[in-house]
């Protein structure tokens, strides 16, 4: 079976761990528990006629308290960039993080998950900005780890892109 390493990148509190918990275990917790370090989970997705085993590296949020260790990204086939749609600043941070990561290890397939789509009234990232990213070739998916919306789709689409790139 094809195996692909996926790293989740984003600042703290955007819902990386919740996305993995929803995708792998179909679980969601309202309580925010910060990730310190790395947790690896596995899940198989179907891409075309092939099963792809995703090794999902849930990395601690990159912020002033903890910087991302680029050695964790070694051998990564793709990135799931995660931002919190209710905090526009987290989108700026993940864009900056992507630039930093690509500077140190080159480019790889990626996808941007704008998480917390269930909190639409508090949404700060406007459609114009999303359209701008799409125009730049970004694939943006609005996800909700809480409701499970588009979570499976995000990982499957990333797997498809990784297979296409390999």
């Amino acid at each position, binding site marked *: 079976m094809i195996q692909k*390493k996926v790293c989740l990148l984003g600042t*703290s*509190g955007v819902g990386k761990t919740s996305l993995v918990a929803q995708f792998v275990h179909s679980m969601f917790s309202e309580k*925010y*528990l*910060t990730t*310190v*370090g*790395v*947790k*690896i989970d596995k899940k198989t997705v179907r891409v075309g006629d092939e099963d792809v085993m995703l*090794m999902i590296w849930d990395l601690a*949020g990159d*912020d*002033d*308290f*903890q910087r991302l*260790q680029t*050695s*964790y990204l*070694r*051998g990564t086939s793709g990135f799931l960039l995660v931002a919190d749609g*209710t*905090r*526009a*600043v987290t989108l700026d941070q993940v864009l900056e993080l992507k630039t930093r990561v690509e500077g140190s290890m080159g480019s790889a397939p990626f996808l941007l998950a704008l998480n917390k789509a269930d909190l639409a*009234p508090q*949404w*700060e990232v*406007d459609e114009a900005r999303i359209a701008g990213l799409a125009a730049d070739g970004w694939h943006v998916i609005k996800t909700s780890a809480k409701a499970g919306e588009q979570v499976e789709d995000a990982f499957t689409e990333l797997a498809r892109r990784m297979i296409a790139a390999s």
Partner: protein
Amino acid sequence: MPHPSPANAVLETLGYALFLRGGDGSLREAGESPQWLRSLWPALEKDGAVLPIEDASPFLENFLIDAEACWQEGGEQRARSGPWVEETGGGERVELEATAMTASGQAVLLIERLGAEFAAKKNVLQKARETVIAHQRLNSEIQKKEILLHCVADEMTATLANIVTSLRLIEAEDNPPRTKVLLGLATRGTEDQQRLISRVLDVFSEEMGTIYGGKMANGNAADFWTALSQSVEMVEGAFADKGVKLTRSIGEKDTLRVPVEASHLERVLTGLLENALERASAGGAVEIAVEDEADSLLCRVTDSAPRMSGEAYDDLFSTFGMPTAGSHASAVRLHFCRIVIESCGGEIGCEPGETSGNSFWIRLPKVVAK
């Protein structure tokens, strides 16, 4: 059963497992495996077992590349993996950290089960990150409210300036009694606006409690009919000027109190009427309808303008979204209405009118007299 060596006993007590790197690259455990390690990797049951890296942990497999570089360098170099989490077969989470070093010429890998110290560090990080997130949200809210404050104040100041100019021009003329009455109304409107600007500024500069989620004492609840009557009086002249007919479908009853400060409610209703007037074409009509529901009241302001698109309905009350229909002033007005209505537990929306036009509605909870 043989006793472990004192060194091994100390390592186990401290939560460490020690592995020695062999010439073939394998990592062989020195001494007996601690229970937590065996629960993670049952292959380590036997003394001196080899760590099954590839099956054991993708994280460790990745770290061993850094460890190898450290061992090649030798000396006092150390490589630390940083914390990571493994799960036992029973689902228990075990937090670990690995360190690679060279001791007496021997390449060594220490795996530590992180304990209370790590938990304390994690706790501090948790609090720090919660604070950062709360700070970001607060900043964002303050920014939005500051923008809103300036928009509302600008809009009102411009309106006020127009009124003042008009009043002065009219006052300079020889006015019949009816005009004097109208002047009186306009003057009152001006004063109300001035008071409102002052109040809004006060509210924003202090704590915004009344507008934003503050609990309102029943005694301060507004009478809906009074507020509606004041609002209609305020806009009637403008409707007449544009030739737009304002009709009411109201089954007026006794006092009906709603949990909104009177001047804010008046401003909301005036805002909805001004919005409808702005949309209506000359000769058109606007209808105000009020329905008394069990625990709430529903007020609709329906215009005769062309119906908006579905997207426009969605965007009308969005937070500082560019209006897809109507002017900027209209967007600010509607946003103000939304804040006031939602902060008192009400709802606001817009939908196509029954036969034509657009129907803006607010639903307000009633205040039950004790």
